[in-house]
Every structure is written in C-alpha cells, then in structure tokens.
C-alpha cells in the first residue's frame, strides 16, 4: 500500500471516532503546558467503547488514525499549546508508518511538529528497546517530543532511562493516588523527580484528583499536573481549568 492510499484510508477510519482534550497544567507558570487527546466515539462515547472495536492488525491503523484525527480537531479548535498523542509502537509491523502519518497530518493542518508530543507506555518502550529508540529518535529529529507514560508502573523504567532519555515522563497514576499520606510513594516520586531534573526531563503527574495530592506534588516541585482536579477532558473542545491555582503554595523551583 503506498503512502497516499494509506493516508486516505487512515483519514476515512478517523471519521468513525473523535476525541476529547485534557490539559496538562503548568501550575508554576499558571497556564496549560499541553493538551492530551483522548479518543472518544462520535457522540462522545467513552474511550473503551471505541477501542474495543479494533483488534489485531486493525489496531495499528486505529492507533495512527487517532493521532491524525486529534491533530485535525486540535487545529480546528485552535489548540495553541503542545498536543500530546498516544503512540503504541508495538501495534504496527512498520511502526514508522504510524508516525509518518502523524507528521503528514501535522503538516496538512499547519500544526507545528515541535508542538507534538507522543506518549508511549513504559512497557512499550522496554519491550524492544533498540527498535523503540530507533523509531523515536527518527521523529525527534523532526521536532516531535517523547513522553514515557505510566512511568514507575512496575516495569524497569529506571533501566530505560540509562539507555534512552525521553523529553517527558508521566508518573503512573498509582504513584499519585493519595501520595500525600503514603511514604513509599513519596520517596519514589521524589527520587524520580530529582533524576529527571538532572537529565533535563519534564515530570508530569496525571490523575491528580484531590487538593491534598496537588499540594504535596507542588511542594515536591512536580508542577506539571493533569487530572480531574484541574480539568476534566472536554469533547472536541478546550476545557477551562477548574481551580484557582494556589500560587502561594508553589515552592521555588529547585
């Protein structure tokens, strides 16, 4: 299948679903840092209902079509921040095809490539280190940034950082849950945060739901936050940030 046929197939596929956007807020700067695109049905059906329809080979195309669709909508509704898109490299035989179509969509909608972040899970990155690094580095040359999602979720993420340094790590939600009262999670997040700081990697905490979690994270200098406390995902729209950012609670950065 040539690139043109492939692109039009993916565009057709993309018409069968849509997406919502949720901000990752830079609470230090008091503004959104990026918006993550989350797949939804055409009538805003939840992600799992959409994802369940695509299996095996079809899933690789679905994965690529989601990114194209998200870029199209993001450009239409005028997202000015970075756009964070999920990426499942193992889904595709030819993983390059997946990101080529993403770059092509960005160009078609005049969305700058250096405002695109792709998120791959820690498990995906580790499964085939070399292949993953090769694919991703190719696209980093084009300006795309890489986030490792679900970092600290039980795979050997620390080993990964020894081999390969992403631009962003997103802490696994399990680490964030009730972090204000959980010593081991606090110790782990502090260590990850320091390590990432030394390597010039941004740390995002997702799944922030309570002000206790929020305050603990901000005190620990984790200031890129995503979660219901700040904003719920909005269907084909840019959600407003729901809380007044308590700037006085923000410690000076390192």
């Amino acid at each position, binding site marked *: 299948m040539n690139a043109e046929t492939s692109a039009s197939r993916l565009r057709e596929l993309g018409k069968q679903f849509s997406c919502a956007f949720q901000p990752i807020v830079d609470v230090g700067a008091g503004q959104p840092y990026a918006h993550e695109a989350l797949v939804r049905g055409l009538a805003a059906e939840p992600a799992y209902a959409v994802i369940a329809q695509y299996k095996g080979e079809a899933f690789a195309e679905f994965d690529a079509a989601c990114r194209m669709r998200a870029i199209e909508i993001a450009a239409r509704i005028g997202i000015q921040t970075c756009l964070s898109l999920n990426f499942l490299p193992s889904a595709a035989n030819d993983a390059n095809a997946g990101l080529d179509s993403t770059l092509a969509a960005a160009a078609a909608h005049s969305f700058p490539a250096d405002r695109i972040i792709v998120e791959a899970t820690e498990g995906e990155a580790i499964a085939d280190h070399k292949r993953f690094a090769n694919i991703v580095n190719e696209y980093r040359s084009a300006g795309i940034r890489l986030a490792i999602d679900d970092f600290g979720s039980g795979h050997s993420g620390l080993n990964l950082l020894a081999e390969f340094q992403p631009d962003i790590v997103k802490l696994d939600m399990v680490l964030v849950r009730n972090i204000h009262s959980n010593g081991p999670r606090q110790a782990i997040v502090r260590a990850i945060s320091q390590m990432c700081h030394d*390597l010039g990697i941004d740390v995002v905490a997702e799944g922030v739901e309570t002000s206790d979690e929020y305050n603990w994270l901000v005190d620990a200098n984790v200031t890129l936050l995503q979660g219901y406390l700040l904003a719920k995902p909005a269907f084909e729209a840019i959600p407003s940030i729901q809380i007044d950012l308590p700037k006085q609670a923000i410690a000076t950065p390192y």
Partner: protein
Amino acid sequence: MWLPLKLLCTVSARYGIVLANSAYLNALSRRGIAELSGPGGKLGHLIYSSTASAAFDEHGLAEVLEGARRNNARNSVTGLLLYSAGYFFQVLEGEPELLRKLFEVISADTRHCNVTMIIQEPISRRMFGEWSMAYVSAESAELAGIEGLNTSGEPLANLGPGRAKKLLSVFIEGRWRARLIEAS
C-alpha cells in the same frame, strides 16, 4: 589534521574565566552557519561535564579558543562552553558521528578529567547555530536565559526551551560536578 576542541582552563576565577574578554572571544565565533547540519542532514547534540585539571594563561586561552572555533566552523560544529569554579559544561551540536569522534578526542585531553557524558541525542535544530563555540561564564548564564532575564547579544539571549537549556540550568545549580579528588 584534526585539531581537538581545546578546553579552557583556569584555576583562579570563581565565576568563569577572567582571562579573556568573552564578548571579544564570542565575536570571533559568529560564523553564520546557523542551520547547517552534517552529511545526510542528521543533527544531534552531545552534552558533557568535566573537571579542569590544568590552567591556561591569557594568551594560550585566546589562541586555543580561536583555533577550536575555526575547526568547529569548518566541521559545522556549534555549541557552548561554560566554566564555573573548576568545572566545565559543554554543549556540542552537529552531525552525530562527527560528535562521537570529537568527544573521543575531547575525552582523551589531559587538561580535564572526570569527563561525564550527560546526553547524546538527535535534535531538530541548533540552539547555538551562530556560535562555533560560545563561551559563557556561570555568572552571565545565571543572568541570561536561566532566570528569564535577557542579555542581548549574548549567546544565551535567545536560547530556546529544550534539553540544552534545562541541563545548563541544572549545571549552574551545581549538579554534574564531580567531587574531585585532590591530586596528590
């Protein structure tokens, strides 16, 4: 003959090198090679830190820096060198394979030790495109870019966000400096 990128060393200055006027040295290094990349169009950066192990006098420094810059310009290598209280921090930008070779040469230079590669990765554009090797002191780095202040005409004035800037700021905070063994 390939001339290694020379490193500047001094033992005296608390904040950067006082030997030479860095504005003058930087003026020498503007080469207008802004968006050049190496063969195949690949571009990467390599960032390392090290510990000074020898001192240079004023003359030696100026000569060495100028020579290094000439070589860098010829090879389309750009970057930044920062010196602070006995430690170096350097960003090299260029064709990845060329940088790897250059780093081998740099690592073997006995005028510094504890050479620690922090990161080597692809980049989409140069951060120090006009500078065959910008020199900044820790003090001016602290004032520019890092605290959000601008010093116009300085290498850091228009430094975009990204890994190089983040690591530079981390270095200025005091990270990536080996606890040096005093040579006996």
